[in-house]
């Protein structure tokens, strides 16, 4: 039996989905996190509690939400309140995971979604933090989902929007961020990264099928910590792809 073919986006969604811990509360942002959450709910994390920042908690994700406030984010949900409720719930330690994106990421997992270039005279104005800074500040663990290239994986982000490990061990707590919080993983278009506990620096964890360590290094504009053993990410399974294509995004909104 031949391996099914799949796109890089489909693979990213599968990798992200596999990171969901069953029964955990997760802040879900627009886009790939939504697809990943749906896939996780249908596979390894049936008791996942999705939280959408504008108030939806515990929705049953039957149809793909296209925005963090739309009715699908509280479809058959357990509550539909407001942004204060979800953000305060996160601030008091109830939200386990947060999924984040950004235009740039640095070795400590800090993210930028505000500007490329100088803040007051930007080369590119990006949408802004949105809930990103809050999610990165309050959630116990954050997972970043990123295009992997050397312009995005850089030594220092142009604008530190969402806190990762800031400038290294202890600096989150020194800044006043809640202890025990911080980045856990980066799901990129090439590989899965985690962080080396001692240095808080990004570390290669696992490669996608067909991707080499050299390719990842070439696409990363800082020194990536190398583990003793690089794992291999399995390709999307047939069932994962079926769910994604037939049940989750049949209208090809994202994939």
């Amino acid at each position, binding site marked *: 039996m031949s391996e099914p073919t799949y796109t890089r986006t489909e693979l990213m969604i599968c990798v992200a989905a596999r990171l969901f811990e069953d029964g955990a509360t997760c802040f879900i942002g627009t886009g790939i996190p939504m697809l990943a959450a749906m896939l996780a709910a249908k596979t390894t994390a049936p008791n996942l509690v999705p939280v959408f920042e504008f108030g939806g908690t515990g929705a049953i994700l039957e149809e793909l939400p296209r*925005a963090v406030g739309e009715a699908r984010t509280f479809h058959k949900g357990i509550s539909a309140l407001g942004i204060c409720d979800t*953000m305060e719930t996160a601030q008091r330690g109830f939200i386990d995971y947060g999924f984040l994106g950004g235009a740039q990421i640095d070795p400590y997992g800090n993210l930028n979604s505000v500007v490329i270039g100088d803040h007051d005279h930007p080369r*590119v104005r990006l949408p802004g933090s949105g809930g990103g800074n*809050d999610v990165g500040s309050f959630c116990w663990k954050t997972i970043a989902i990123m295009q992997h290239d050397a312009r995005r994986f850089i030594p220092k982000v142009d604008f530190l929007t969402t806190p990762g490990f800031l400038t290294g061990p202890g600096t989150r707590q020194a*800044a006043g961020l809640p202890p025990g919080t911080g980045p856990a993983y980066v799901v990129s278009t090439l590989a899965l990264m985690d962080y080396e506990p001692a240095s808080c620096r990004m570390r290669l964890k696992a490669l996608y099928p067909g991707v080499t360590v050299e390719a990842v290094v070439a696409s990363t504009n800082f020194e990536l910590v190398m583990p003793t053993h690089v794992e291999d990410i399995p390709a999307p399974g047939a069932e994962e792809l079926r769910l994604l294509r037939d049940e989750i995004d049949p209208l090809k909104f994202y994939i």
Partner: protein
Amino acid sequence: MQILESGIGELIQPFDMDEFREWNRTRKSRKLVDKRMSEQEAVSKFVYDGCYIGTELYGTVRAPMSLAREVVRQNKKDLRVCGQGVLELDLWLAAGLIKKLDITYIGLEVYGIPPSLRRAVESGQVETCVEWSNASITWRMKAAAMGVPFLPTRSMLGTDMLKYSAAKVVEDPFTGIKVALLPALVLDVALIHVQRADMFGNCQIDGITGFALEMSRACKRLIISAEEIIPTEDIRKYPDRTVIPYYLVDAVVHAPFGSYPGEMAYMYGRDEAGIKEWVDMSATAEGAKEYLDKYVFGLKDHAAYLDLIGKDRLEQAVETRERRE
């Protein structure tokens, strides 16, 4: 409890709690008076050049789109704008109405960075962007709603967000942890779209409340647009459903499909093609202008807009609504 750090961002809407109290005492009637009026009248009466204005919830979800278009139609300029938005703020950016931004997020969601935002900010047309997170801007409104000058948070700390905001970091005098203090935010004008209101302005919302409770209590003037105007008896039968009481409200605009092409929970779903039309046309300044000509300047009012959209598309939007099941 000394100040450990202060953001360098401008407080583009300075506040004074005592002045807000005085406003609430003298400028907001407690009387039950009929506040119904058209978009044209409400915007003309309460939105003014240079005012600090905000909208709720956002562009594709329970958004005051008919009011947002009317603001463009009346060319209200030099606006200082609060927070986050999708289509509604993007229209204002494209129309060149925004001078300063307390920005949290202006994006096209899955469609990415709005070209109108890029053009307006990168050209310098928007003079100032002060950065806030979604939670922190809401808590700024919540502070005003509570009648206090600030609220503490553990967000924004350690980042450039704090640096480019107008927040201040202090040590909590009880346990010694660091917190950021967010200054209260009182808007000059707020635009909020709801499912139902009575003629006095008592409002009910179905589905998530976003930041409607906070914004409605943190503004000097509040324009409500509502899908339905209901009898006050229905409000009084379910007082526990009133999330915005009438005394906060200055104008009530009856705006069926007021959130279109965005959605309205339990009433209609979003029209993806309608949203995509703006996404595509706003790629260039010329395209954005063409869109505004077609959907705003070329039309007299919201009724004309709905005529242009046509019954079929509206019915289709109703068909795709979220249902209670």
